[in-house]
């Protein structure tokens, strides 16, 4: 079986956009979205100005992160290596858009499902070249079988592997041989992309280098990713993008709301279980009202998630067509488990079945922890976003969930007097303060102290520290959180003061969750 790959000889590309349009025509792509396009970068000062054209399309990665994250196996790899998509089973969760480091997926406004380039598999099966290859006036696009050593694309791929120090030296390839001449996009992502670029300029192939003064098409800055490098007025020679058509960021405020409501749901249940166990507390707060709050927020969380789908009526596909490599699927089951245990707990609490409660404590703790922390792993599966990489966010999510749970319980206790004991309330206050201190330390360490592992990460953090998210970060996530700690510490026994501290903690948390979601997606990918 073949293993299809692609090469673009940028020395021949004239930036005419024939490929962009041929693709639109072949696949009837609506306006506003693209399977392939051509970015333009300028560099240098007059008269040594250069302009570079950089066509992008799906890399059909060997280790495709979109396939890994897709909860319903709508994305799949064909036997010929092409990454294709069953739009019939796509639920429109946009996780693939978060996973793709190359901004190659988008939601088709006609079908409300994901779409992407598939090397024109419909043509390839008819033994026709992809339409962008067939149309290209200068024949700069090369399509072929990477497993066929005689194919041009295989020789180019081999030359690229040789440059990286892998594999045997490539056979002579006309005009190819200069070091660094053949590249792929973001090899560091480990996705094994199969689109090879000949003669790519650094600032064109790496989206984090060139400044984006704005998209010259319009004077409208809507398309400019907020975390782009800023142009330096004193360095007009530096690379700048003057044409690009990035897709809209996949996740919005819904995801921040999901983080908050889920944090409240899991934190509340986690604390009810722990308080019930360690304090041997059997008050209404831990037995019924607290768990009820958890369940209510869990339902809100689920509703937000389902409503956020482009095809909400297909939400159950996650259950009947699960992809067990996707944290989204695991998360769904954790949410279900959490809901079931919480419901049982409320029933047992209502009927005073303390034996059952004792039996439910550890399952409840585990379900809450998993439901809290899986999101960290889910976000980390969003390979496109360096801000979300690594396991540390799972710990911060836990700190936030604990704070949010404590806050929810304190507010509940204040609103419904007499349902909890003073001992539990003051313990919750201490937990709130402790969790917020942990969360704050985490924010300070991650955003102010720790070195950025990548340029992408650096841009995201810089957008948080002094960019478009600075106000919300400093004023919301940092200052409000500090105020909440201070208020909580001063008024440990005054219910309404505690409730105020709790509200502030929720606000601070939410501010960070919003910043985390937005800033994470603010860095240009293409």
């Amino acid at each position: 079986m073949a293993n299809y790959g692609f090469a673009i000889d940028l020395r021949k590309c004239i930036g005419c956009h024939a490929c962009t349009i041929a693709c639109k025509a072949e696949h009837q792509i609506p306006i506003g979205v693209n399977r392939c396009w051509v970015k333009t970068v300028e560099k240098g000062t007059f008269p040594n100005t250069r302009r570079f054209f950089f066509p992008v399309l799906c890399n059909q990665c060997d280790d495709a992160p979109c396939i890994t994250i897709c909860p319903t196996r709508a994305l799949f790899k064909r036997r010929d290596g092409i990454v294709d998509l069953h739009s019939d089973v796509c639920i429109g969760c946009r996780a693939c858009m978060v996973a793709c480091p190359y901004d190659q997926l988008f939601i088709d406004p006609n079908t409300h499902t994901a779409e992407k380039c598939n090397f024109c598999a419909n043509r390839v099966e008819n033994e026709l070249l992809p339409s962008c290859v067939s149309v290209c006036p200068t024949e700069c696009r090369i399509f072929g079988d990477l497993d066929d050593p005689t194919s041009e694309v295989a020789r180019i791929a081999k030359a690229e592997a040789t440059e990286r120090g892998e594999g045997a030296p490539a056979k002579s390839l006309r005009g190819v041989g200069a070091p660094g001449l053949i590249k792929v996009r973001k090899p560091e992502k480990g996705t094994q992309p199969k689109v090879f670029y000949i003669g790519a300029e650094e600032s064109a192939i790496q989206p984090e280098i060139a400044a984006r003064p704005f998209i010259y098409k319009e004077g409208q800055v809507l398309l400019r990713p907020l975390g782009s490098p800023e142009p330096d007025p004193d360095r007009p020679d530096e690379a700048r993008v003057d044409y690009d058509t990035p897709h809209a960021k996949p996740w919005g405020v819904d995801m921040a709301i999901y983080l908050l409501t889920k944090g409240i749901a899991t934190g509340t249940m986690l604390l009810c279980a722990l308080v019930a166990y360690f304090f041997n507390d059997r008050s209404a707060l831990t037995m019924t009202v607290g768990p009820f709050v958890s369940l209510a927020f869990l339902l809100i969380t689920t509703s937000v998630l389902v409503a956020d789908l482009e095809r909400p009526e297909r939400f159950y596909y996650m259950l009947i067509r699960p992809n067990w490599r996707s944290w989204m699927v695991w998360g769904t089951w954790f949410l279900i488990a959490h809901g079931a245990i919480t419901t049982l707990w409320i029933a047992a609490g209502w009927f005073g079945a303390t034996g059952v409660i004792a039996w439910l404590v550890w399952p409840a703790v585990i379900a809450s922890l998993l439901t809290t922390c899986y999101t960290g792993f889910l976000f980390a599966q969003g390979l496109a976003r360096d801000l979300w990489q690594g396991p540390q966010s799972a710990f911060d999510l836990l700190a936030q969930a604990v704070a949010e749970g404590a806050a929810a319980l304190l507010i509940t206790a204040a609103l419904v007097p007499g349902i909890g004991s003073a001992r539990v309330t003051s313990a919750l206050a201490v937990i709130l303060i402790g969790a917020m201190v942990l969360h704050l330390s985490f924010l300070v360490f991650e955003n102010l102290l720790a070195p950025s592992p990548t340029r992408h990460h650096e841009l995201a953090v810089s957008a948080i520290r002094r960019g478009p998210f600075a106000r919300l970060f400093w004023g919301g996530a940092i200052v409000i959180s500090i105020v909440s700690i201070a208020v909580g510490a001063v008024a440990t026994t005054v219910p309404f003061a505690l409730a105020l501290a709790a509200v502030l903690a929720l606000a601070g948390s939410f501010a960070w969750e919003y910043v985390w979601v937005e800033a994470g997606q603010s860095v240009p990918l293409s």
Partner: protein
Amino acid sequence: MPPFKSHPDPATWDDYVDFESTSWPKKERRRYWIIPSVCFNCESACGILAYVDKEKLTVRKIEGHPLHPGSRGRTCAKGVVTPNQLEDPDRILYPMKRDGDRGSGKWRQVSWDEALDDIAGRLRKAIVENRRHEIMYHVGRPGEDGYANRVLQAWGVDGHNSHTNVCSSSARLGHFLWCGSDRPSPDYANAETILLLSSHLETGHYFNPHAQRIIEGQSNGATLIVVDPRLSNTSAKANMWLPAYSGTEGALLLAMVKVLLDENLYDREFVRTWVDWRGYLRAARPDLAVTFDNFIVSLKALYSEFTPEFAAAETGIDAAQIVDAARAIGRARGTFSTHNWRSAAAGNLWGWQITRCLYLLVVLTGSVATKGGVGLHLSNKFVPKHPIPPPPPDYWNELLFPREYPLAFFEMSFLLPHFLKENRGKLDVYFTRVYNPVWTNPDGFSWMEMLTDKEKVALHVALTPTWSETAWFADYILPMGLGTERHDTMSQETHAAQWLGFRQPVLRVAREKRGEKLSATYEANPGEVWEESEFWAALTWRIDPDGSLGIRKHFESPYRPGERVTMDEYYGWMFENSVPGLPEAAATEGLTPLAYMRKYGVFKVKDNVYTPHQEPLSPDALKGATIDAEDEVVIKDGQRIGVVVNGIAMTGFTTPSRRLEFHAQTLVDWGWPEHAVPRYVPGHVHWRSLKRDEGEFDLLPNFRLPTLIHTRSPVKWLYEISHDNPLWIATADARRYGIDTGDLVKVRTRIGYFVTRAWVTEGIRPGVLGMSHHLGRWRLHEEMGSRVASALVTIDRQGTGYKVSQVHGAQPFASNDPDSSRIWWTEVGVHQNLTFPVQPDPVSGMHCWHQRVTLEKAGPDDRYGDIYVDTAKSHEVYKEWLAMTRPAPGPGGLRRPLWFDRPLRPTSDAYRL
């Protein structure tokens, strides 16, 4: 691995089974007829394949035509969007007649019968009353060869007007004076050095065919040199980008000439054989003996001042770079390819001298019509004979070629409103055909004044596939088909070969394949969209229903005497009788020539057309001829008919001397002796003359975008990519004015101003501003005009002052196409041409596009898209430029040299005053 094909095999075209891409990966099959045609979206005439869905009878997509010799299976973005044009929700689908004041926007749908009768009646009356000069056909891009001209000829009307003098006549005149062929046909693919004075890699005259060959040449090692003050996409691909000040290109090129002469990098034998150096020496250097060595000596003397240092000071390019480029050109002896069409030639006064300087390099390197050199369109473009040729018109229309412009290369089209204002004539029936002068030409408000004046233009018929600013002021709007909706033949000199393309109304062809019989193409096209070829035949029959005027016979069937010719018969006759080799090729497939062309859509007549000037003269031609041994030429009936080379009589070039004319005696004879040889004349907006401290700049308004089609491209996929034309301004200049990208700026010309946004860039020479002429479409009615591409505007008139204000730009709207509700762009550019006065070159007649403008930051009351123009001032400027002319008669009482052709040439008698 399967053998991948770029296109389906022609054997499958009659029943091609494709997987439906939109329901993929479900394998739903669709059946198509693949019917070839010719793209109609620029002049390249690329071959296209239309996929006609057999169930729905619609065009699913357009692809390149793999057998087409010019485009070789590929198209540009503009070709692929043809289905967007076909399905454009703002398309005009039915003939419409004005139903209110002209320009009031009130229309009623009429039948083709009604329109034909009314228009034919008027035409007949004008012809019968001997007012043929009041009939005019004004064409933008012809997109076909010879049909419309023949219609006018059949009517006996000298009424062909074109767009060429706003496009390319200075490039043409420059080439023509040298070699008698007005369009170069560079053989880029085989060149060693390529020099472009145009942005040919993105927007050239034959963009796709040329771009592919330029890159092919470059990939094979050719050096690409681009001269352009703007970093075009072509400049971006250059091995050497020489951003000379605009209008100084002549100095740059002559400095290169000097390097070739000084370093002995010229092809001595070629120049000796093929240049009319004798003519030059006799006319200009009577002090010297007529020897070739003396010619070289005098050339060196003539260009001695063009040292690299002089050129560097004049052009702003490093002297060393000029020498490097010259040496690259010299090294490419015989394989030097070049092109100059719009930018420098069309931008500057005396732009045709820039062309002549450039061609001098082609001549010196011996690259004329060689493999890898620059061929002649005369030998590379194939125009077949049409049936029953009518005689040429027997009078001269001075509205087209007035006496002031005897050497104008094409009609003085863009001066028409000023001619009518001066009462030089009037028009009874005025056809505009795919022509939008209100928008495309400079000084559009003068056009609007002309078109709204019924005394000047009694009936205006707009033949157009789409709304335009000009069609708005028509009496009839007659919808004509696009690239897949019409019959035409078309050929271009895309490379060193000859080919003929056949454009077809693919839905009609498909229905006829299904066995239906259709009597008119509009029965198959959307709505009642027709095609011109059939329309003209029908119209001509109604002008002369009984044949008594002798007009009808030209549109009678060559096969059925007395019957109206059908399209099958017209083109069938042409393919049977005037395309060498086609009948034989068709016979080998068991097809008639027409069936062959319906199946393949293209025929290669000749390949590897090189050195046509070395064709031996035929014995017939030599009969009665004598040889002038001294000049080595063949003479017959007092005219030179060929050149003797090594004892062989060859045809030579189509110039009076039959050689390449370094010295243009024609210019001397017609009053321009100072321009007799290629020389450097600074342009009309020379950088040294700019008052920089008063805000003066040189505005380059004449560059195109690779994604747009002049006025035929208001379609969603193209506008999604390109919808705005900000003003390019160099960083250094922007800083002086405190202008940032996106800021509103006001640009003043002699006759008005416009307000647009700035784009600050390092991609343009300081002192020069750039603005693409492709955008800034507008409409006066919310729903009559392209909503994808135009701004709704109001026009306020105060006397001769006009103020345009934008009400809104593009915005989403509901239609059958869900995409129309997804339009995300708003600003659609600013129409700068309105604010340009006419600036006709006194020799070539070319409008000199570059503008001397004053830049300022926009004031508090200025809005994006504001335009102001005073047409009284524009008429003043017209008179200033008119005063520069040196009118006919020339020698022998001629209006125009006899060897200067015209697009529709009248009798030679008509050339005499």
